[in-house]
């Protein structure tokens, strides 16, 4: 693969106070399959990164490595100044600060919406129940569904469930939010309500890493767009440059296929 020119970030990577995530030469394998190859990425505080690429390119695996839902086998990942290793204490500490929203929402179906939101604050942050419920209602209002608090996830539409999932992460007051294809499992008419919540969150200055194919969203909020293919970061640029003037042939091909 040496003929592919990988665009390395020009800035020298130093771990300063503003750096939230630092990935240094990260490799990962599933068995024999080399799924992440030499990933270098630095995310600063307040930055909003969109990762796109064809399916199987390793983009989901990349962000799942950031809270150790997947384990990397080589290289370093430093989140919030703590390196991710096998140490359970560190993993749990990082997970408390990093929220994640999944493609399939993964709400807890046996708990009411309110209990979904208060569970982690109560059991992980040791917050008193009444306080946790106040926080939960605050975030449910922010995602505009406070009236659903007593219902169960199975009674909500997909878009509503995903907004609950975002609110559930926010209840832990995370410093970083990871989105793993948050709108891919939604009906077209529900995508907008979820994207609106995410745009609002971006405008408030949340550090976000988002795997998505919503190019409109990328243009609106991203500081940087990263294109991945076959486990590598192929191209990385600010959105205007990325969409109007892609450098790599594969990026051009990918963009021509998804932007009709």
């Amino acid at each position: 693969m040496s003929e592919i020119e990988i665009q390395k970030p020009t800035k020298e990577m130093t771990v300063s106070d503003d750096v939230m995530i630092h990935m240094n030469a990260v490799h990962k394998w599933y068995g024999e399959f080399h799924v992440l190859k030499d990933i270098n990425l630095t995310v600063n505080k307040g930055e909003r990164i969109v990762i796109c690429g064809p399916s199987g390119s390793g983009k989901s695996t990349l962000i799942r490595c950031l809270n150790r839902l997947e384990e990397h086998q080589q290289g370093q990942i430093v989140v919030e100044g703590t390196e991710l290793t096998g140490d359970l204490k560190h993993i749990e500490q990082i997970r408390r600060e990093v929220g994640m929203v999944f493609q399939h929402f993964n709400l807890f179906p046996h708990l009411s919406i309110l209990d979904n939101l208060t569970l982690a604050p109560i059991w992980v942050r040791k917050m008193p129940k009444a306080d946790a419920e106040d926080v939960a209602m605050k975030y449910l209002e922010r995602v505009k569904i406070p009236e659903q608090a007593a219902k169960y996830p199975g009674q909500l539409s997909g878009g509503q469930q995903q907004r609950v999932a975002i609110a559930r992460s926010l209840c832990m007051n995370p410093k970083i939010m990871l989105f793993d294809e948050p709108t891919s499992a939604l009906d077209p008419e529900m995508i907008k309500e979820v994207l609106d919540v995410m745009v609002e969150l971006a405008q408030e200055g949340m550090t976000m890493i988002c795997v998505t194919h919503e190019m409109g969203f990328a243009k609106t909020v991203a500081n940087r767009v990263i294109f991945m293919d076959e486990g590598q970061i192929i191209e990385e640029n600010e959105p205007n440059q990325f969409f109007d003037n892609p450098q790599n042939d594969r990026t051009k091909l990918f963009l021509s296929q998804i932007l009709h």
Partner: protein
Amino acid sequence: MTERKSDSHELGSHPDWSPPASTVGVLGWMRANLFSSPLNFGLTALGLWLIYQIVPPIINWAFIDAIWSGDSPDACRNEGGGPKAAACWIYIDHWFNYLMYGLYPKTEQWRINSAYILLLGGMIPLFIPSFKYKGWISVFLLFVFPVIAYFLFAGGSFDLAIVETPLWGGLFLTLVIAITGIVVSLPIGIVLALGRRSDMPIVRALCVGFIELWRGVPLITVLFMSSVMFPLFLPEGMNFDKLIRALVGVALFSAAYMAEVVRGGLQAIPKGQTEAAGALGLSYWKTMGLIILPQALKMVIPGIVNTFIGLFKDTTLVLIIGLFDFLGVIQATFTNPEWGGFHTTGYVFAAFIYWCFCFSMSRYSMHLEKKLHTGH
């Protein structure tokens, strides 16, 4: 309801119609389920004929021809001395105390009754939806009640006379074995199931080994081992009570089955649930206790209750190691020369009691399933 005028409405404003009269109500139901075709008509007739052949004789045997009063077994006999072809309920009446308590001394039976009352009194609030302290009641029933029950039954302290376990018997002994087995096997089964799905190879191997060993052996063998072989391995003079050995055997045996039932539930929970809980910072045990197990156990309630019902009926096997459970004492009464010959009544009564307990468990599980359903 609006009348049917299929052409009178505008496009997009079709009124709601009621369904055709022939498809609803009793008549509709009968038409659909009993007489929908000549074959079904024939089957319905055959069914009615079978009911007519079977049900009236049973009612005659159990109620109309049955002997309800009398002091001696002679009331239940023909002139020739053989038993009459009807239920001899005075036989049950005569032996009732023995069937319920075995040889437990009559003067001490209040101790068993008190435990029953305590247990039932504790369980009733669990069925009241608005009752607030269900958690505390459950803790009491699971952890405090067994201790109280042990001291009440065995005696030896608090001025209670010692009652040796060989005197325990009847329905009382059956309940002791079954309830102990049920209460102990579920938590052990859960731990084994979690262990079998663990990432740690040694824990996993131990759990698999335990489950496969106990599942691969008939319960009779377990009981024989516990009562005959096990004492041989103990040092001289050291001995456990036979009942305790049987209890441990039954509990571990059921735990192995329970583990596999619970594992089935664990496997049905999507991986995303564990990931979502982990991403929120929950530890392994909190993830299991708060997210995975509540869903998995709810899903396998039918399987769990199935195992409980099996366990309840399997308690009858303790007869072969010389413990006289409910079925055991019934069989013991047959050997009494004065009251001989009433096998049918005895066995029917036994079957009825076992059925009542098992059916209650089944109904309770259905109630639980409905209550815990949250629409997913």
